[in-house]
């Protein structure tokens, strides 16, 4: 009986505890360093719109692509117990398709914009299903399977762009990348909220969450309960494909050009990290999309904080690494177990002094 009590105490260590503490610590740290750091004000931007501005806004805005990719990455991680490292390269492809469609014919209108976004999604979903096929049907480890697209993706984007870095300038595109006239919140932030709502609705109106977790936790049992494990894994990659297309299109819209070499470069590692910081098991199974989104903001806030502290950009990655090591170690099951044991011992020692005395007597 006693053992059971201890066990249940150990589990009470919520998945979101660590990422939320990390955010809180970063906020406190910044407030001490510079009380005005999080000042948010309304002012006119270059286009003459009245918009929200300040460090906090640029952190939340800047993390948008990462947050969107982290949502899809969470699903792939949960179902397949591995990660897709090709999201950056795939985003370059999707971004190129997006630009290519916008530049076909003359003029850019709403219809063409929707078509471009739709086409980018289709292409990214096709590449996602290729990755998914390798993982789900051919049982190749996700990292190896997606290494292929990681290697060749930016070359494919190069071909689509004909070797150039084409630019697009249109009010619609800049509205996607920065602000919609009359709305003071950056559009990428709105898109993150929209994507989060869509995921929530999918989980509400389908069994995706339950099935994905079952496949990730115990594939064999899931199969014997009639779940099509291959389909669930494939589906996770296809959904990630949609996230990739949206993130790629946002990235392109921000700059008004597609640079296949630099668009969302190295974002895959940050996306995986966001999933991990969010308390999700990288080996698959139970997951919380909200954790990964918070994880994305932790990473972005950390980066901006370091820049604000005038850390040279060449050194930022090293400092980031230190903080991330701490976060990941604290979040690891081994640490949690040791920590719980330590706390139990502390409690026992306090009580033990009395008990021991009694035993001897």
């Amino acid at each position: 009986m006693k053992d059971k009590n201890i066990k249940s105490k150990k589990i009470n260590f919520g998945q979101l505890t660590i990422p939320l503490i990390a955010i809180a610590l970063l906020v406190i740290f910044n407030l001490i360093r510079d009380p005005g750091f999080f000042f948010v004000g309304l002012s006119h931007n270059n286009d003459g719109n009245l918009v929200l501005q300040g460090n906090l806004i640029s952190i939340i805005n800047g993390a948008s692509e990462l947050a969107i990719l982290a949502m899809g990455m969470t699903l792939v991680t949960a179902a397949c117990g591995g990660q897709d490292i090709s999201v950056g390269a795939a985003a370059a492809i999707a971004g190129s398709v997006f630009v290519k469609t916008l530049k076909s014919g003359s003029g850019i209108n709403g219809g063409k914009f929707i078509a471009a976004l739709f086409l980018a999604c289709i292409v990214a979903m096709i590449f996602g299903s290729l990755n998914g096929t390798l993982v789900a049907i051919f049982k190749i480890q996700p990292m190896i399977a997606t290494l292929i697209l990681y290697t060749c993706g930016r070359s494919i984007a190069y071909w689509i762009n004909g070797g150039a870095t084409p630019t697009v300038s249109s009010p619609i595109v800049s509205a996607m990348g920065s602000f919609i006239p009359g709305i003071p919140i950056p559009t990428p932030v709105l898109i993150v909220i929209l994507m989060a709502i869509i995921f929530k609705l999918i989980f509400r109106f389908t069994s995706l969450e339950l099935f994905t977790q079952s496949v990730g936790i115990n594939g064999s049992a899931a199969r014997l309960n009639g779940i099509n494990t291959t389909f669930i894994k494939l589906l996770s990659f296809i959904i990630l494909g949609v996230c990739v297309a949206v993130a790629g299109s946002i990235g392109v819209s921000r700059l008004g050009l597609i640079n296949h070499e630099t668009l969302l470069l190295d974002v895959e590692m940050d996306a995986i990290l966001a999933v991990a910081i969010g308390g999700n098991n990288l080996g698959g199974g139970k997951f919380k999309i909200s954790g990964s989104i918070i994880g994305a903001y932790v990473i972005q806030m950390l980066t901006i904080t370091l820049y604000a502290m005038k850390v040279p950009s060449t050194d930022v990655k090293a400092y980031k690494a230190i903080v991330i090591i701490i976060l990941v170690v604290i979040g690891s099951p081994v640490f949690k177990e040791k920590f719980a044991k330590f706390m139990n011992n502390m409690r026992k020692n306090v009580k033990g002094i009395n008990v021991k005395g009694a035993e001897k007597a």
Partner: protein
Amino acid sequence: MEVMDMQEDHLLELRGIEKRFPGVLALNNVDFTLRKGEIHALMGENGAGKSTLIKILTGVYSMDAGSIKVEGQSVHITSPQDAQNNGISTVYQEITLCPNLTVAENMFIGRDSKNLVNQKAYEKRADEILQSLQIPARAKQQLGNCSLAVQQMVAIARAVDLQCKVLILDEPTSSLDDKEVNMLFTLMRDLKSRGVGIIFVTHFLEQVYEVSDRITVLRNGELVGEYLTEDLPQVQLVAKMIGKELDELNNLSDTEEHKEHDGQVFYEAQGLTSSEALPFDFQIKKGEVNGFTGLLGSGRSESVRAIFGADKVGGGTVKIKGENVKITKPIDAMKHGIGYLAEDRKRDGIIADLSVRENIIIALQVMNGFFKPISRSESEAFADEYIKALNIKTASRETPVGSLSGGNQQKVILARWLLTHPDYLILDEPTRGIDVGTKLEIQKLVLKLAEEDVSVTFISSEIEEMLRTCSRLIVMRDRHIVGELKGADLNQAQVMKTIAGGES
């Protein structure tokens, strides 16, 4: 003097071995003696403690009490390396060598590194050993290109060259065909003549009688006894493994009536086969409880898995209520009203990190379909209903099922299938590793289901359980159906005779 002689003859002496796992006494005061130049079969059903004993001997587990003597010397074995240094080598069921290295490299890898410096020298040495043991492999050959039997033999050759005195073969024949088994036996006899003591763990009774000199039987972590193979008839061995003396059994039988079923046939298979099961015929009537019995590895689980489409179905025709149907994967079976509680609860049953509630509704959810999720409140109601009906002991319906006790986990899986309201429920070892009270509850449940016209296939290692619940028993041996017992034939003695193979 005689005592002295005996002692000298003893290669390995285990005395009073005890091993405790949380909540289980896996080995209780077990003795085991291996003599020079003998093949000694270690027998017992699942959970008897065979593998625990082997793991203690090879240093994988440490024992809680007892002593081990090798050639009369007390030894402490705390790691596999210790075991090897004491001349104890093991060849496991799955081959643990590297298929992409050569035979010679496999034989010398991880040993004194001097050996690996001179490739020529160790290849020559490997060829010598292979030749002396008459193993049909060459040193330079890549191991992966050899047949499974030869790979197994290379593993043995490696063990022999480690100057082993005690060779443990853990289910070495389970993936070999008859010819390969004979090759292996020849090698075993050869080693025996060189004075090596061999511990042979297998579930093939015929093989025990073909090759072994002595048999030690374990049951429920306790020693049943040590016997000369020639003195122990096969049916006696089965009785000792399962735990009933034949006379005692005869008295027990006929206490219960088994009525024959005259209902409509619900499920019928002809020549059904899967990647794991040989073709077999089977049928079950509405409201009938039947059982598959046979020793471990006899093919009883594989057969019911084929019915459910759990393994790749090879062929055969299946009829449900007289109509031809195709069942190639679990969802097909589920849609035809078949439920399946898998033998290995941990691997194939529970989804450990998910809550009790999610584990209960998952099969029904899958049947309802991807786009028709069961609402939260509905799933809570289902969970509460079955937690109460089956008396599942859990802190709450949101507790991860992995933290429940084995019996309660099993009830959760039962609840999962009951919730789908199956017409035919297959229960493979639903009572394994759970407490007696829960076992009885499950048996009662099976009988209650039958009354409600549900067909049930019930598999258990404990024959009494099956006799209590089943009205018909299908007996399997070496992956074939060897008999079907019903009515007056449903008694322990008859079952055991059929399992062991005719002669008593």
